[in-house]
């Protein structure tokens, strides 16, 4: 499912890569975006609901990026972003950007399946606006 958001996520991360962002910087961008998603969704679905969505997204993305961290069993405390950041930072920045795009898009598609396009867009709009519209990583650090 090709979407406008996927295009936005991919373009943003790819532009960061193209201007020479390190894999650590790409990993931080992705982790920040997930933090934004977490802030948008936890008030509505609760910690456990968010954790379930994140685990499912990881599960859906691992066939293409097997090096992504496996979802921790029995964890109810939300997303393990430290594990994600570490895994992303260990790859090349292009690989990290590709996996991050895949992961965020999986979560968005999952949410769309459950609650529909317009409500998903309504809930995640502030996240994309905050994390994907700013200057790229290289610009902020220079």
């Amino acid at each position: 499912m090709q979407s406008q958001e996927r295009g936005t996520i991919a373009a943003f991360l790819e532009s960061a890569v193209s201007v020479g962002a390190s894999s650590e910087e790409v990993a931080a961008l992705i982790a920040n975006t997930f933090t934004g998603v977490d802030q948008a969704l936890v008030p509505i679905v609760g910690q456990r609901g968010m954790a379930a969505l994140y685990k499912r997204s990881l599960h859906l993305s691992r066939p293409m990026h097997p090096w992504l961290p496996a979802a921790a069993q029995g964890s109810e405390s939300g997303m393990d972003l430290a594990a994600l950041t570490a895994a992303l930072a260990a790859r090349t920045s292009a690989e990290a950007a590709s996996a991050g795009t895949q992961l965020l898009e999986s979560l968005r598609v999952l949410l769309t399946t459950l609650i529909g396009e317009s409500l998903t867009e309504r809930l995640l709009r502030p996240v994309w606006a905050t994390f994907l519209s700013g200057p790229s990583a290289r610009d902020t650090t220079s």
Partner: protein
Amino acid sequence: MTSKAIINRLATGVPGLDDILGGGLPEFSFNLIAGQPGCGKTTLAHQIMFALATPERPAIYFTVLGEPPLKMLRYQQQFEFFDTEAINQAVRFVNLSDAAMAGDLDQVLKRIVDEVTAHGPALVFVDSFRSVVLASEKDGNPHNRLQQFVQQLGMLMTSWEATTFLIGEYFSETDANPVFTVSDGLIWLRQSVQRNSMVRKIEIMKMRGQPTLPGLHTFRIGTSGIEVFPPASVANPSDASVRAAASAPRLLMGVAQLDDMLGGGLPRGYSLLVAGPSGSGKSVLAAAFLAEGARNGETSVIAAFEQHPNRSRSRIVAELIAGGKVGLVENRAADLSIDEIVYMLMREIRRLRATRVVIDSLSGFELALAPTFRPDFRESLANLVTALAGVGVTVLMTSELEDRYTDLRFSPYGTAFMTDAIIVQRYIEVDSRLRRVMAVVKVRASAHSDQLREFSIDADGIQIGQMLAEHEGLLGGRPTRKPLTQLAPLAANDPNG
């Protein structure tokens, strides 16, 4: 000298609900929406919320345990009232499951206080409250803890000027639940199942300070949400019938000779019962009545409760419906309540500003009612006739009459007394043919013919002929020819001839 507090009544946005609430929902009230699973509690809450919430005075919807929020959003957005753009603006969802799962009522209350303080909502919903109750049972003394919680919540919400709804499953109405005592309003939703029909009912068991309509009221859940059907008398307080009856020329039936028999047509605002056996021509007469209305520039509504509408509806009626001259109310599912039928009729009457109504037939109407209402059919019918009279329309109802030649009956329901006028149709046997006769039995407060006239049905409709003056014993079904000596004077002396 201080004046009394003014209680604003909020329009709930649920059609019909404000009527049975007694004028709307009191502002800042503390309400309970109760009922068994699947009876529409969450839908009712959402519909009220989306109708009332604004960005300035938003709503907060706390989800506790029970239905996962994603599921709730998935299903509720199917309704037309669900406004995606309102989310996180006028409407805010807050999940309290983490605090509730820990069984910590203080923590739950603190989260509610924090959110209410931060956003100053006009409306607060807690769904489902039963899970709060269950969570509280983890503590030693559940009733005390719960009572404290509810007391605090009620006090807090009132002082924050928030109209509050606790949504919950309460299986026992007689349970001395402290929540019942504290709440200002108690809205109970039910499902009544009889055979394979299910009817939804709503009852306002309590609403402080206002005259609610007592009893169970039917409602339906459709794509636009919940629609409540208040009793007809409330829906139509009108003296239109009085005005209609007093003024204006009579309505013509579309059969000239029949108008003569009625004493110059049917008085406006009257209800007419056309009774007769199967195939005697009741629906043909009803079609003529509708066509005559259309000819005079009037609009009409027909309530068709037949099993095969397309087969039984005449070409004339079908054309009138297609042409917008006649509104159609039909339903073949056996799950209607009388209030819903009246509601549908009234909506069509208002929409078309109709002056004529046909109900074809009462037998089909009875079958369309949910089984749970059938024992009250006679009473329901009386309500229907009263309601229609209340808006001043002229009503023609057909009634299937089992042909019994031993007694003279007009309606199998004992409904004859409710109607202002009655026309009866019969079959008789003459010269080895089945022939039809018709008579005007009653026209309230009006002179009318007492003749029993033969009639036939052809391509142009009903043709009324002469009296069968040479025969007697017509109502027995097998008339005999009178002796010739009696014939001439009778026909000559009749003033209606």
